[in-house]
């Protein structure tokens, strides 16, 4: 990875982020609805008082002025103040972010941990019962509407069987001194196995719901690419060398077969973030996705703008990580 390439990458971020800010700002500006009205609610209020509230939120200026102010402040790391929380949006987002990151990571890990072995085994036992099951499973996985599947899981495991909790990230009784703000990690770092189990019980259903489509896609990708790799000359050559089947599969085939899996996984992690809001809504998960959706509904413009920018940065960074992983797995490519 050369430095110039890295800088080039970072520079590519600039037009994307600028474009994203413009679009989101225009969208918000064109969206009817007035946060001040929402705030006032059912009350008779004088025109001066209403004007005062509008001024306090910075909504009295014309749109282009607001946009320039937003850009100017954003460059300095100030994304404005959340209308409702009355605090910097960066703070509000930062508080909700760990929950979303934790959920996404667990979903990602679950997806990788099931899809790769499943895809590999399906490929090397092509047409076996397991392969067919994996194929059917992965088709089901991409076809299940997450919001519905989540509700079914919730009803089955939390309500009828009462094996798992219905909502939240952790029981209120479990208190862990935060380190990373990822509860599963923190509880382990603090040596609190009880809290870890508690957090795991909470995260398992949302993570399955969130990770299922990705698992399905990655299983398919892994299987396809494994099949392709198994047909290559270097696998034939490795077999001709009299190596054990294990070695041929795990040392020669897998590393190459994982290249597309990793690229797709990075891209799909982006849609994982996008799918968060549905899962967070269904499972009452205190993450960013739910907050953003709520914020759109109540016209909390600064928060929506900042969150969308964050999503865009994440998306670009994920692509970047995918490229790096690509080079690690594939020595032919030099970034």
């Amino acid at each position, binding site marked *: 990875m050369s430095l110039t390439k890295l800088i080039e990458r970072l520079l590519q971020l600039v037009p994307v982020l600028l474009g994203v800010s413009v679009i989101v700002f225009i969208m918000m500006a064109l969206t009817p609805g007035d946060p001040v009205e929402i705030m006032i609610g059912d009350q008779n209020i004088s025109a001066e008082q209403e004007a005062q509230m509008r001024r306090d939120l910075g909504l009295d200026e014309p749109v282009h002025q607001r946009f320039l102010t937003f850009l100017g402040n954003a460059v300095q790391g100030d994304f404005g103040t959340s209308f409702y929380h009355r605090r910097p949006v960066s703070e509000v987002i930062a508080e909700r972010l760990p929950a979303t990151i934790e959920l996404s990571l667990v979903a990602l890990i679950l997806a990788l941990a099931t899809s790769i072995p499943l895809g590999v085994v399906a490929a090397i036992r092509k047409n076996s019962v397991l392969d067919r099951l994996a194929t059917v499973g992965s088709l089901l996985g991409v076809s299940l*509407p*997450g919001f519905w599947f989540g509700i079914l899981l919730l009803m089955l495991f939390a309500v009828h069987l009462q094996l798992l909790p219905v909502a939240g990230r952790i029981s209120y009784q479990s208190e862990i001194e935060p380190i990373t703000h990822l509860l599963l990690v923190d509880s382990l770092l603090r040596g609190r196995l009880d809290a870890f189990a508690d957090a795991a019980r909470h995260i398992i259903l949302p993570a399955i719901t969130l990770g299922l489509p990705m698992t399905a896609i990655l299983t398919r990708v892994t299987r396809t690419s494994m099949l392709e790799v198994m047909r290559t000359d270097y696998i034939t050559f490795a077999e001709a060398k009299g190596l054990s089947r294990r070695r041929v599969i795990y040392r020669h085939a897998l590393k190459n077969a994982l290249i597309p899996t990793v690229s797709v996984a990075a891209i799909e992690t982006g849609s994982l973030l996008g799918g968060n809001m549905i899962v967070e809504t269904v499972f009452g998960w205190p993450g960013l996705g739910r907050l953003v959706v709520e914020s759109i509904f109540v016209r909390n413009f600064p928060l929506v703008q900042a969150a969308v920018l964050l999503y865009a940065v994440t998306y*670009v960074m994920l692509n970047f990580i995918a490229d790096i992983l690509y080079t690690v797995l594939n020595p032919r490519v030099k970034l």
Partner: protein
Amino acid sequence: MSTAAQSPTEAATPAAATSIFRRNMRDFADNRLALVSAVVVVLFVLMALAAPLVAPHDPNATDLFRRLQPPAWMEGGSWSYPLGADALGRDILSRIIYGTRISIFIGAAVILVATTIGILAGLAAGYLRGWTDVAISRLVDILLGFPYLIFAIGLMAMMGPGLVNIILALAYKEWVIPCRVVRGETLVTRELEYVEAARALGASRGHIMLREILPNILSPVIVVSTIRMAHVIILEASLSFLGLGVQPPTASWGAMVADGRAFILESWWVSTFPGVAILLLVLAINVASQGLRDAFDPRFSE
């Protein structure tokens, strides 16, 4: 995978394009599961078209005395409302049947609009290169930076609810996907001999793009489109689920699931059956499109 290409006899003989197409169709037909799924999709389409004939009730007729009536086989159910009734006493089966129209119409319309835009933009970017490519590719990057649902939710908030608005909200971002496929394929195809030949003969750019390149890159585009259609149907349902879908009382599966969500503890059927409907249709489209993909474009993988 077509087995002939895979056998190491290296005996594959070159064949005319039509016979390849015929063989592809044969491969597709041989894939029994894909065929069954294609039939299921067709059945759904027919159901959508013939909704007024097959639906036992007016999907919007409310009957508060049948509120949350259970399905026929449960206590308190009746066969005139086979899948039970919703919170306003509307027949769930009839609403599912009418909801098929919304899902399929929105799915098809979004894909049609998005694929058309995507093909034109992708051809222009891939063939004309230069600033056109830069501009289109940047726009694609920017749109990819938005999470799909957030973008759609924002647009729906901006434009307000309604059928056309949903189609627009989804198509605004969806076109990026065929665009990328088309651009990539065009970049390869534009260097091929026959395209060079057409250029040398002085064919116009438009002619080359639409007549020479497009027909040759259509099959991956079709494959991608069918897969995406399944996706769009889920997205529409998700939007309706979040309350940003079609106007009530129009039946939409996503909205039906969302409405039923509040009753799921005591009246599970209200949201379960529309969810099953989404699953069935999307699954059928996915299986059929995978069959298509296997038959037409073995090298293509998601």
